[in-house]
């Protein structure tokens, strides 16, 4: 996994093609990444422009504390194997073992429509079921997508989230590697969820995956992403960008269950453009990481477009989950539903940060926002930062926010029925997140409930 010690940098590579860029970010590193991937010149130029923007953009003055990130102390590109493989047996043994621990092959044996797993910055294992090919569905790593379908990628890449959007979008645009490229032709319904497993594994290595999903008219796809990461001693950075285009009458559901290790800075920009009568659904569960800043967004561009965002955050000691959602109503009769649930425990901190914008002319727009925070002990904290810009009087907005502490009375009621304090807490927490969990694919719902139970175990009473 690690580059040879005597290897410096440049355009010659060790025989196994196990390459790791120098620490820190500069145009040479960006050039190397692009060269290494044999990218078209426009992508190289785009990366270099993004690097410039990254240098100019300030850190966000709001949100979580990011002062401990040292951009000079991060590897921006690591390539663990020299080629993409389709067969499980071709995957290097050590990597295979890691995957077996996460359970990729087991999952595949079940009913996955396609497996694509990211190990460090390169997708090294991917298998596609024949049905996908038959229906004309493209499900590749972003690198492979760019190589095979440069015209589609060029048409959409960076159009929803340009490099100039924010500092971390710029960083991703300059250094991106891996992620998924999904293209669903008009009228095609992808019956089974497309799943991708992501994993960071090199110390001090930032993962900058880039995902682009294009759903043509009247199509449907459910993309599922689950993340785990092993523990490190120093901080790790994850800055992903996810762009989604929902064409007229299409529906895209994007589910994330994420459990980064406790030292990862998870700074993700996710945005979907939804055209006429299209539907975008974000389901976003954030359990791990040191800091998460993530606000899945829907831009409702066409008449009757709908967006739904379900967001769940869980913060423990030393964690700050700054999560939320954004809905921008541009066209008439658009609707959005935002449901946010957060739990903080043991000194953890959660923040809901939301934006609702209804532009002039978006008559008949409707939005329903509900954010609930559950605080499990006096050391923990939760804040709400809702922003509303309503510039169309003929629109309907409902907003409800609650902050509840798991009360002595609630625990006592359940304990007086024979449950232990830990069981009672677990019951309250699982009930609290139930509206989101019931939207997850079964195996993720089970995993999420199990993760919460593990967190609760031995924590109370």
């Amino acid at each position, binding site marked *: 996994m690690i580059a040879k010690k005597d290897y410096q940098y440049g355009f010659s590579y060790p025989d196994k093609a196990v390459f790791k860029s120098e620490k820190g970010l500069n145009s040479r590193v960006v050039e190397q990444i692009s060269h290494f991937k044999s990218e078209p010149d426009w992508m190289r130029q785009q990366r270099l422009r993004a690097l410039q923007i990254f240098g100019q953009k300030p850190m966000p003055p709001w949100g979580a504390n990011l002062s401990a990130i040292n951009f000079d102390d991060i590897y921006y590109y690591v390539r663990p194997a020299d080629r993409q493989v389709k067969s499980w047996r071709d995957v290097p043994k050590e990597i295979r073992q890691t995957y077996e621990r996460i359970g990729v092959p087991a999952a595949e044996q079940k009913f996955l429509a396609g497996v694509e797993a990211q190990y460090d910055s390169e997708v090294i294992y991917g298998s596609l079921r024949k049905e996908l090919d038959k229906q004309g569905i493209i499900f590749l790593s972003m690198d492979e997508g760019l190589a095979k379908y440069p015209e589609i990628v060029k048409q959409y890449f960076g159009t929803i989230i340009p490099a100039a959007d924010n500092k971390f979008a710029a960083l991703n645009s300059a250094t991106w590697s891996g992620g998924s490229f999904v293209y669903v032709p008009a009228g095609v319904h992808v019956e089974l969820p497309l799943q991708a497993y992501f994993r960071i594994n090199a110390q001090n290595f930032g993962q900058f995956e880039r995902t682009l999903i294009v759903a043509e008219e009247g199509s449907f796809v459910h993309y599922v992403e689950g993340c785990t990461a092993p523990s490190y001693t120093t901080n790790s950075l994850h800055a992903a960008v996810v762009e989604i285009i929902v064409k007229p009458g299409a529906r895209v559901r994007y589910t994330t269950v994420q459990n980064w290790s406790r030292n990862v800075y998870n700074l993700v920009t996710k945005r979907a453009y939804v055209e006429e009568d299209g539907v975008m659904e974000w389901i976003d569960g954030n359990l791990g990481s040191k800091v998460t800043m993530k606000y899945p967004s829907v831009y409702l561009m066409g008449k009757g477009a709908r967006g739904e965002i379900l967001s769940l955050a869980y913060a423990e000691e030393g964690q700050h989950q700054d999560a939320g959602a954004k809905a921008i109503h541009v066209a008439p009769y658009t609707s959005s539903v935002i449901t946010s649930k957060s739990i903080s425990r043991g000194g953890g901190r959660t923040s809901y940060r939301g934006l609702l914008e209804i532009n002039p002319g978006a008559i008949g727009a409707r939005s329903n926002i509900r954010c609930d925070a559950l605080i499990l002990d006096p050391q923990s904290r939760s804040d709400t930062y809702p922003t509303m810009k309503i510039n169309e009087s003929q629109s309907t907005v409902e907003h409800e926010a609650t902050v509840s502490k798991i009360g002595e009375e609630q625990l006592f009621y359940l*304990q007086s029925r024979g449950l232990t304090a830990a069981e009672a807490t677990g*019951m309250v927490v699982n009930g609290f997140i139930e509206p989101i969990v019931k939207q997850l694919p079964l195996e993720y719902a089970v995993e999420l409930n199990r993760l919460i139970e593990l967190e609760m175990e031995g924590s109370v009473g």
Partner: protein
Amino acid sequence: MTKKQALSIENLVVSIEKKEILKGINLKIKPGEIHAVMGPNGSGKSTLAYAVAGHPSYQVRRGTVRLGNKKISSLAPEKRAQAGIFLAFQNPVAVEGVSVFNFLKTAAAAVGRKIAPRDFLQELEVAAAAVGLSQDFLKRDLNLGFSGGERKRFEVLQALVLKPKIAIFDEIDSGLDVDALRDIAGQIKQLAQGGAGVLIVTHYQRILKYLTPDRVHVMVSGKIAKSGGADLAAKLEEEGYRGYR
């Protein structure tokens, strides 16, 4: 819960935040008996209910609570529930996302009831009908958006399902109409006939029109000022608590 046991409260002194509320209570409830503790607001009668159930804010300073021969007054609330104590709350709390059915199933298992799922469901349906609740009720979130009457009926339903040795009802009659009162009183009576000891804590004697207590205790300022038979309740109705202060 087959073995019937008496509840014995001996010289119980309880304080909340260092303020002494109960100042030496003695009370014995035998299996199948119905006792009523009556008293004005602030007399400490609800404190007695919570202290027996083991609320963490209520500190037992002196005295003991026993169930049969077992001392329960220093046990965690769940241990007391598992031993056979049940408290019907005056204001039960809501838990969102937890269905009534799931809650009852979990609670029944927690207090050690061993029953096949199908039999349990059948039993629930019978018990729900007995307290005047519909089958759909089992799917609702625990106490969420329940009317006052539904909450009370549901507390009684829990007592029927959890089969305690001692069932304590804290102000179960407040805010109920006559029909609900009659339903609930009937079920409590049956609970006692089945061998449970029952303690009814109430300000008014309304519910006592529908079930006759074996003993009535007047509580004033943290002490039992007088004990007597069912006729004592009627006397209180006429004369009020004034004579006991």
